[in-house]
């Protein structure tokens, strides 16, 4: 991936959604959706339907960008959870329920059962989450439409990793912008707090991690594209990396922007909590990132799996060593202690 920017078409659609969400998902509307409608804004759902999100189709990059914008606006809809099934099968309104709870707002859920993927009616009690929406631990009924095999299940999960990551990074970037704005206005000890390195450097660290995570979202989307040799979802190593980095960066943003706001950030009156509660909740809804990273470690240590890796670092395929290093290191040494 040489061009690190979103492609022009995706940028255009992303900008249009961002403009709409700036009005329709403003913080007061997010608060109202949480207080009055269980975290789902019916007006916003209608608006997004009218925008055509239910029929969204195209490159993985487009889905990633839409998820990014929905995260950035803390959009009170349960759409990102349906993106994998929509993107890879064309079926709308179906949450992916392979691991962890799913939104109560969607009545259909895709489950993995042995070697097949089946769409079932959501089954189980809804519980209010700390992020303000309602979630269900789906209990499989064994009844529904079979839509694919283990291969599809694998692709759906990897696609979910991409859009989950994009949503987290979008929310993180918006929270950072909110924190920077505050740090540029708030005065303490007679000075703008953003002039103190203790504050400014926190925000600079957050910016580095979030930008890195956002660039990983774009690269993972790039690797997912059939035009670049992908199967419609990021390859396993990019699926792991994009999600793990997004979780780390978004959580880091939440912790640090709270610190910048001091006591005000703990007050419900300020919007920091709107972001941090969602970031922390979204980060915990699927698998834990640690075991995923350990799996990535196993992947690179297995010669056959390592040789099949694509587009990692500066390598096109695998991780070949320069000739001199192969010869120098061939003698070997003590293994890991």
């Amino acid at each position, binding site marked *: 991936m040489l061009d690190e920017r979103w492609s022009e078409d995706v940028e255009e659609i992303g900008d249009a959604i961002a403009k709409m969400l700036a009005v329709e998902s403003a913080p007061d509307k997010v608060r109202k959706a949480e207080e009055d409608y269980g975290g789902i804004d019916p007006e916003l759902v209608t608006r997004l339907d009218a925008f055509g999100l239910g029929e969204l189709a195209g490159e993985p990059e487009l889905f990633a960008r839409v998820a990014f914008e929905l995260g950035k606006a803390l959009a009170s809809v349960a759409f990102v959870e349906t993106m994998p099934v929509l993107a890879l099968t064309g079926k709308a309104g179906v949450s992916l329920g392979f691991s962890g709870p799913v939104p109560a707002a969607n009545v259909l859920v895709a489950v993995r059962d042995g070697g097949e993927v089946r769409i079932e009616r959501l089954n189980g009690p809804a519980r209010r989450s700390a992020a303000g929406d309602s979630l269900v631990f789906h209990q499989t009924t064994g009844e529904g439409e079979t839509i694919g095999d283990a291969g599809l299940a694998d692709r759906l999960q990897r696609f979910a990793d991409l859009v989950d990551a994009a949503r987290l990074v979008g929310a993180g970037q918006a929270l950072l912008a909110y924190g*920077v704005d505050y740090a540029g206005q708030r005065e303490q000890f007679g000075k703008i707090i953003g002039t103190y390195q203790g504050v*400014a450097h926190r925000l600079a660290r957050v910016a580095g991690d979030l930008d890195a995570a956002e660039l990983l979202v774009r690269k993972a989307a790039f690797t997912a594209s059939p035009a670049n040799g992908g199967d419609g979802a990021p390859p396993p190593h990019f699926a792991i990396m994009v999600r793990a*980095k997004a979780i780390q960066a978004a959580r880091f943003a939440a912790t640090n922007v709270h610190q910048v706001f001091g006591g005000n950030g703990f007050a419900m009156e300020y919007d920091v909590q709107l972001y941090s509660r969602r970031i922390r909740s979204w980060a915990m809804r699927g698998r834990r990132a640690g075991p*995923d990273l350990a799996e990535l470690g196993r992947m690179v240590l297995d010669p056959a799996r390592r040789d099949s890796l694509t587009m990692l*670092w500066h390598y096109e395929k695998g991780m070949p060593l*320069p*000739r001199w290093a192969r*010869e120098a290191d061939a003698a070997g040494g003590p293994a890991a202690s």
Partner: protein
Amino acid sequence: MRALADKCGWAEMQALREEIESLKVERYSFAFHRRLAEEGLIGLTWPEPWGKGARVDQQFLMAEELECQGFPGYGLTTNQRGGGMIMRSGNDAQREEHMPRIVAGEYTYCQGLSEPNAGSDLLALKTKAVRARDAGGDHYIVNGSKIWTSSAHVSKFISLLVRTDPESSRQRGLSVLLVDPGWPGVTITPVWVMGGWRVNQVFYDNVRVPVENLVGEENKGWNVITGNLDEERAMSFGGTETRLLCARLIHRLSGMADRLSDADLEKLGHFVMELEADRLLYLRVGMQAARHEDTSGTGPMSKVYGSELAQQFIEWACDLVGHETLFTEGDDVLAADLEQQLRVATVLTVIGGTSEVQRNIVSNRHLGLPRSN
């Protein structure tokens, strides 16, 4: 570059390393620099007749490949920086003299910037140049001293930042002079560093510098040198060599996942991920530069990310490989290289501007916060 790497076996790399050891300069080899010149790889982005008019991203990928293949890239970096400065700010006579000789690998450069009392606060510099005219011609008389002048003892020219207006302060009243390290009054003293090489303190005692060696306008030297600093921040500080070390470590441990703890496997996955992230930040700077966009905020972000990552990785890698990385001599090349990198990485968060300075720039230029105290 990969074809070049395929021709280089361990015996050839050992010869390069022996030359680097004899020169006592970090990752600097005249033999390899000449090889790059023969291949026409110096100044790729410069316009013809000196360069090839390549895009910045093409040069960026070439430099990345060079470092990731383990070749000594410092000579290319520092000399292209010197050439870039003359290209941008020099006069016709300077370009005519220097540019063909740079691409031929003959003219080499180092930077005389920091002073004993002007490190991170570079603009506190005191080295002064006074213009004088006598029987010997129109020239500057330079007095002062510079420190951390890497490769001064092997370079043909020092790009020296001096104060030419004694009434000025900070970025005003500065000029850049090209100084031959062999001129009378120039004394180069080694400063030995943990990496195993020398940087230098250079003393200037009534050094006569012809006015023809002024680069750019007198008292406008800050504009000349900031182009260099921007280029420096766009360099990879630690990421490329860490990727090579990590790849070598992975090959060393190939098939041994069962012998690693879950914590170490997770850490390995973490570094694979972070090195990808670091590369993307670094790549962004290269692509922005290629599009002539402002990199003054993203460059420092990339620099601080890569340098801190390099330190985190090497601490873990040495710990993982174990006791063999305690030693500076031994037959295990990978362990020896890891041990050396443990020392070298110490300075990555300092050279080219400390992490603190970089974060000041990120918060100011990238985030738009007021200047930090």
